[in-house]
């Protein structure tokens, strides 16, 4: 079937087709016979020629074609994009979650390059950089004219090399000089792992990047040592990341060679089914997944799989609804295309594009409260992690003000897990309710019962 469609699409030139079959990739369009393509290119060349001759300053041909690629890709859909070398490199670093740097989160505030936080155990943290510090010089050059991206580029570099920065600290009259040696910084995607109460564990995944699966196991290992009996998996404001890694996370909860998600594209090579391993890492632990409208893509794959397979209860508000998969296709010159190549579907065949995952139990929170929760979390961190001797009274004041803000979805999630535990205890002891075979295979049904009762 596939072959037929492709032949129809691309027409003749059997040679090209045969060769590309051999090479194992998808078909090449038969360029030599494609007069439309030739005319189109002709058109682009004449436009490019006009610009090269008439534009007021000289522009390289490569600059112009790069502009062309950008235009072509971004007109396709909001998720498709042309990445030049620098952007592609940054994207790789981001998804790999590792780069040579100082270990600070920076932002542009009041036109100053400002430190948001120094990540624990990084060179910046050890050097004593503090939230609110303004970086006014990097390697003797002023940061005044730098964009955030340019500044990040200057701060990052090969681990082991040193960067000199000048910092203006609010409340200090003199500039502070720092010489900080760059190290391999790992962006943590697993955050705030801990026990909420009563043997209920909590793990937040901020995005799905290369080491997320490994780090998740590490966090879970520690929680299990502490004897957790239930888990809140917080995927709120998780924008996604690597598809494979999201699947890896879902796989940890679902065993028995079960369909987790499948993708469908125009080309058959994009039609893939992703199934779980026979043995899941955490097949039994009751799970509540928190989602909100900031949960997208990979988060929705995890939530969708757990929901469809009745392996977890979804609590919160309807997720973002990004149901497409992007592939990164590198070009020979070091740049790359990010293209939407497929749509994905939950095990039950739901396409969540623009629809999102609706929670089993809807608990909404105002945007303002959500912001306050984030602020509270950040303040808490600043207070507990700031080096000794730093003045954190202002932060403590702020924190006190926010102490009344409640994370309602999280509270509901813990309520639910507590109730669930009581319920299954009764059902096991009294033998009143039999565990039923679940679609997921090995699930012990605590959660399954809960999800039915929740409807």
């Amino acid at each position: 079937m596939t072959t037929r469609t492709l032949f129809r699409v691309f027409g003749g030139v059997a040679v090209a087709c045969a060769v590309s079959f051999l090479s194992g990739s998808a078909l090449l369009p038969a360029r030599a016979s494609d007069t439309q393509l030739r005319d189109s290119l002709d058109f682009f060349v004449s436009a490019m020629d006009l610009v090269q001759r008439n534009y007021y300053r000289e522009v390289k041909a490569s600059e112009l074609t790069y502009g062309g690629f950008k235009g072509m890709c971004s007109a396709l859909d909001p998720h498709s994009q042309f990445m030049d070398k620098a952007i592609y490199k940054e994207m790789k670093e981001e998804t790999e979650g590792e780069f040579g740097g100082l270990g600070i989160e920076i932002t542009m505030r009041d036109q100053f390059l400002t430190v948001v936080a120094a990540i624990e155990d990084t060179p910046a943290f050890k050097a004593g950089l503090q939230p609110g510090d303004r970086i006014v010089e990097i390697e003797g050059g002023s940061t005044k004219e730098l964009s955030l991206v340019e500044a990040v580029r200057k701060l990052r570099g090969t681990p082991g090399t040193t960067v000199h920065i000048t910092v203006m600290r609010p409340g200090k009259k003199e500039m502070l000089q720092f010489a900080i040696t760059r190290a391999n910084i790992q962006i943590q995607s697993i955050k705030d792992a801990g026990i909420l109460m009563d043997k209920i564990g909590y793990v937040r995944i901020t995005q799905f990047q290369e080491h997320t699966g490994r780090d998740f196991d590490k966090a879970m290992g520690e929680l299990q040592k502490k004897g957790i009996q239930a888990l809140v998996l917080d995927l709120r404001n998780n924008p996604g990341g690597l598809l494979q890694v999201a699947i890896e996370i879902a796989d940890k909860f679902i065993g028995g060679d079960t369909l987790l998600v499948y993708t469908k594209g125009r080309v058959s090579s994009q039609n893939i089914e992703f199934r779980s391993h026979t043995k899941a890492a955490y097949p039994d632990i009751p799970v509540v997944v928190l989602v909100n409208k900031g949960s997208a893509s990979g988060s929705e794959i995890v939530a969708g799989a757990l929901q469809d397979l009745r392996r977890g209860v979804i609590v919160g508000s309807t997720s973002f609804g990004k149901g497409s998969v992007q592939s990164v296709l590198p070009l020979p010159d070091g740049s790359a295309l990010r293209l939407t190549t497929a749509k994905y579907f939950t095990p039950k065949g739901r396409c969540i594009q623009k629809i999102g995952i609706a929670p089993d139990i809807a608990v909404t929170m105002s945007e303002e409260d959500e912001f306050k929760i984030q602020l509270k979390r950040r303040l808490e961190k600043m207070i507990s992690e700031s080096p000794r001797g730093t003045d954190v009274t202002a932060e403590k004041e702020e924190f006190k003000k926010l102490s009344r803000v409640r994370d309602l979805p999280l509270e509901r999630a813990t309520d639910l897990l507590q109730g669930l535990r009581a319920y299954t205890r009764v059902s096991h002891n009294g033998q009143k309710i039999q565990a039923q075979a679940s679609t997921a295979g090995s699930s012990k049904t605590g959660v399954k019962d809960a999800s039915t009762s929740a409807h």
Partner: protein
Amino acid sequence: MRKRNRISVWVTLPIVLLLLLRLHGIDVQAREGGIYKSLDTMCDVMDIIQRDYIEKVSSEKLVTDAVQGMLSSLDSYSHFAPAPEPTAGPSAGAPPKEACTYGLEVAYKDRLLTVVSPIEYAPAWKSGLKSGDIILKINDEATEDRPLFEFAHQLRSGAGKDITLQVARRGERDFIDVTITPGKIDGPAARSDMLDEKIGVLRISRFDKETAARTAECLKKLNAEKAHGLIVDLRDCPAGAVSSAIEVADLFLPAGELVTTLEGRAQGVSKEFKSNGKAIFKSGPFVVLINGGTSGAAEVLAGALQGGVNGILMGQRSFGCAFEEGSFTLKDGSMISMITAVYQTPYGLEIQAEGIDPDVEIPLPPVVLDIDEEEIPEKKAAEKKEKEEDKGKELDPMIRRAMDLIKGVRIVAREEEK
């Protein structure tokens, strides 16, 4: 993967060769300057998209978007207009004449659609729009990421309809809605006044057909009043006809002085403009007031006065927008507009994008947002009223500083004469 690339080279190369043979007018330089390689990548990219993208995309669409992307990567003014549909009416033609207008110049600054300046006495100015306002919405439609030319015409010309802009203004906590009814500009392009100590002030608010003649009248009047020293106020004076600015410069500059140079790469585009020796006002010193709303023709004049009569520029860095645009029709009837040349000051400074830095910088007052004040609207209103009353009574602080500067220069000059 590697194999595939090699194949694509084999298939692509003949096409590219064929193409280059067919095309006329590509000069040798361009051909050797990596066009081959760029086009090969172009083929690769189109190939990948057409093969792997989730939907089928025609080559035609891809290439149209590519040309658009190529031009918008140059700057925010250059653009591509696809061939008009045969049914399209006269709306695609030239914008209506300035008889009925909003009187508003906009441009992208740091990727935000910004009011360069409302033209004095024009409807936008009367409705309270300020230079530097960031336009967030036009008639409830977000302006984000839309090409400039789409609304540049819309805002400049006005098709007889009211327009509502939502703007963010420096120092204001809330967004402001401004509704503009198109109308006429009903004030003079130039006017003058005599201040203390025989210091004249000339205000030019726009550059159009009447500007040079009006300015000449003003200068004659100041001459008659024996003005000695002149403040040329070019603040919030947006783009207009550069030819008009050159005529105005002629009223000041000694014969043969460089007014401005136009620099481009195509043949016959670059030009030097020199003054024609018809100056009518020569009694300096000159102080030229500029700010972020000084743009285009006004920037050219400011540069000319700085170079030709030692004018001292005072205020804030100008907007940075002085170019000539060329339009080129492609064979399918679509059109490319791009910057073909940019104006330079006599000192060789390119005005485009950078703007002109003042000799004497007067920083804008810092913005202080006081929460308590915000909560007492009556108090705020009272203070505002007070401020406005003050304005009526007192001289603009910038003018006062310019006067001080002229007085100072006179004293030093006299010393030197001795």
